[in-house]
């Protein structure tokens, strides 16, 4: 299998890359939504991120990637007794996927051939402790969105169907991408994404030429190209690991908490999820920058991506919400 395009080789799109790195540092931030034109590297970045993430320890053969043997759900009869290292799972959720495939369902083959009642885990099980990626998320069918909302909220998948009663952990980072021209996203689902970024095609000629050059090199001279970027990807991976450790000792001054709260009040964002995400994102960003304390500057840099999709939406407002956040940040933080 060919390796995905290296993350460090993606030209520009700094905000998107930053948002993805932040969720890698602190998965509890809750995922990234990438909205933008076709062919701007949305999917490329998500797949690249998968290769970049540090591996996780999981029980061999466990359908929900449990960390320890004690945590393997009782219905999983295929799980082994030892653990091994696996890459962080990144699971694709295609459009038009059926409910059974998402939540898991009765294993038809075993039911028919052996007459056994067994559970066949779905995509949510596979995505546990990893990433769930939905391309064209704004075209997703409503009934699938409802399912995801529930699971993303509770971190647990409950299957009550076909005479089965199964529950298993399903904690994943939701990554969505889409083209806003093709349809809008339901506000409820929007809210489940921690960060949101808008990507556009680069307008700078040099940058665009560089995109083409690198992509071309990736395809025609794969081995040399991967070798060239491997070191840089490894550097980012190390930095993510360092930042994860640093996150624990990071100090959060009282004044920054106040800043965060004031900002959210001024923006009138619904609920407290905005504050929490902003704080987490700012802390992850500070850890990434190798700073020892959280400052106003960190908050300012991540405010747009943490809050732009949480504003009480006036459906007829034309100005981009990123602009609105920018204005309020200027007002509140000076």
């Amino acid at each position: 299998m060919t390796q995905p395009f290296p993350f460090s080789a993606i030209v520009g799109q700094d905000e998107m890359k930053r948002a993805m790195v932040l969720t890698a540092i602190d998965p509890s931030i809750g995922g990234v939504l990438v909205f933008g034109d076709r062919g701007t590297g949305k999917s490329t970045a998500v797949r690249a991120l998968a290769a970049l993430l540090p591996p996780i320890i999981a029980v061999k053969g466990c359908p929900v990637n449990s960390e320890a043997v004690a945590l393997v759900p009782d219905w999983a009869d295929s799980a082994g007794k030892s653990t091994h290292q696996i890459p962080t799972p990144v699971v694709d959720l295609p459009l038009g996927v059926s409910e059974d495939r998402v939540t898991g369902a009765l294993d038809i083959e075993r039911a028919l051939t052996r007459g056994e009642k067994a559970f066949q885990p779905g995509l949510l099980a596979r995505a546990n402790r990893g990433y769930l990626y939905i391309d064209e998320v704004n075209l997703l069918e409503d009934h699938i969105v409802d399912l995801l909302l529930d699971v993303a909220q509770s971190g647990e998948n409950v299957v009550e169907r076909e005479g089965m009663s199964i529950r298993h952990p399903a904690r994943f980072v939701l990554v969505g991408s889409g083209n806003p021209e093709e349809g809008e996203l339901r506000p409820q689902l929007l809210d489940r994404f921690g960060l949101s970024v808008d990507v556009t095609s680069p307008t700078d000629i040099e940058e665009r030429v560089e995109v083409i050059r690198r992509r071309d090199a990736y395809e025609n001279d794969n081995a040399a190209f991967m070798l060239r970027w491997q070191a840089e990807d490894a550097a980012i991976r190390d930095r993510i690991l360092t930042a994860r450790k640093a996150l624990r000792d990071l100090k959060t001054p009282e004044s920054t908490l106040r800043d965060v709260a004031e900002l959210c009040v001024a923006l009138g964002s619904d609920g407290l999820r905005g504050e929490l995400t902003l704080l987490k994102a700012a802390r992850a960003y500070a850890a990434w920058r190798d700073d020892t304390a959280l400052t106003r500057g960190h908050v300012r840099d991540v405010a747009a991506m943490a809050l732009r999709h949480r504003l009480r939406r006036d459906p007829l407002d034309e100005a981009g919400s990123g602009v609105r956040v920018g204005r309020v940040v200027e007002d509140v933080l000076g």
Partner: protein
Amino acid sequence: MRRAAACGLDASWKMSLDKPADTAWHRGALAAALLAVDPRGLGGLTLRARASPVRDAFCKAFAHFPHPMNRLHPSASDETLFGAMDLSATLAAGEIVKTAGLLDRSQTLILTMAERTSPQLAARLALALDGPDAPCLIALDEGAEPDESLLDSLKDRLAFSIDLTDSSRSSIVACEWDIEGARARLESVDTPQTTPASIVEVCTTLGISGARAPLFALRAARALAALEEHTSVLDSDVETACALTLAHRATRLPEPLSEDAAPPPEPSGSDNNETHAAGMELPQELLLEAVRALIPDGLLDRIAAGKSRAARGSGTGARKRGSLRGRPLPSRPGKPGGNARVDIVATLRTAAPWQTIRAAARPDHHGLHLRPDDIRIKHYEDRADRLLIFAVDASGSSALARLAEAKGAVELMLAQAYARRDHVALIAFRGTTAEILLPPTRSLVQTKRRLSALPGGGGTPLAAGLKATLSLADQALRKGMTPTLALLTDGRANIALDGTANRGEAAADALQMAAALRGAGLDSIVIDTGRRPERSLELLAGALGGAYIPMPRADAARMADAVTARLET
């Protein structure tokens, strides 16, 4: 439409004088050859043509494509694409029998009737095309109307777009290329350092965003160089490649060249003998000119008219039954396969009472005894998307203040449509014609923008407005949506359907169109925005079979509430 076709004919005739081989056919054949040389890199092509001898002749070129080659139709299910358990065979054999999916066992996929591809199928194919073992996709687009075509998300991933609609049998020329040899040479073709830069610059000038287009152009140039046995990519290769891959993606026209500029180069061709020094910066004008010559007529109009088809999730609308999604209904006997989903529990329940008898009849068979007629299929009830069509009278008689009020009401209704997740479309009629300001969309921002830009003045071509509504509603019905009309007018129709100012005829025409709309099964509401209730509008509402809401002092909020109340029932 007719004028555009004539122009196209004219242009190809002129070209054929300059260069006998350069027709749509020839370009198409060249594109197919390039694709055969580098099927993985170029993704595929979309071929727009009705089933015809020309298309059949063209499809012969696909013989060079990597095998196995399979056909795919737009309603292909997941089982067809990705493979699944073959239920009948499994039951017969008593062990699991799986079928391989088309994506697993095809190198080349031919998608027939590509214009009917659903966003869901397009998304899966797009995923496959982005993946490591991408198939080469040939989309046969048989769309008759300009707005019937392959979805943009898929088109963007295919390098070429060929239109053979206007080609006749006489344009068929047998083209012979050394595909195998070219494929072998492809690896060793050099690319000058400056080539990517010049391609990107052309893309920028043509308003093409995204990185796929320039990559396709680059790969096509390389494949062309291999085909023509050049050791490195020449300027002429880049020129032809740009023309083939970029013309249909242009979103704006480059500034026309001044008269004294260098004469436009020969757009393309295998017999182009002049070779520029490799590595020399290619003049942008030449590249642009090559692309510009091929930008199809009306492309920009189509872009302005609305970029993409709106999303199709489920909203609220009429009920429709299917076997795919929605609220479950009791399952029924049926055959598995296709889009049908087997209801395992019901199937087992049906088979259960017979187990003893069947076991006695076949003592050698262990396990469950299932017969094909035990199989139960799931059924669901779903609601179709609703489309709210606003037909707004922007004539002079709907004096400006009232037009503003009508706009206000539409805005309020839009906000409510947003809450109900309806699609909306906007038609305005004034002067002598009606205009579709906004094709069905869910984007309220766009709707509002178009609405606020709506000018007023002129006659009241009520019949024309209704006619435009009818054709829009017709399209929506065919797409499975449920259209509803909200007509805002003061009802003084004074322009007949043929554009003449004749009050009597105008009223008669309007009534006739109203009857046609009613015949199409459209729900409608007529909102009288005039100062006094208009008797003729009440008649019109009667002909439409819809409600008549007089708003002598039209108040936006009241109007919106009335419409909503009406729609909720």
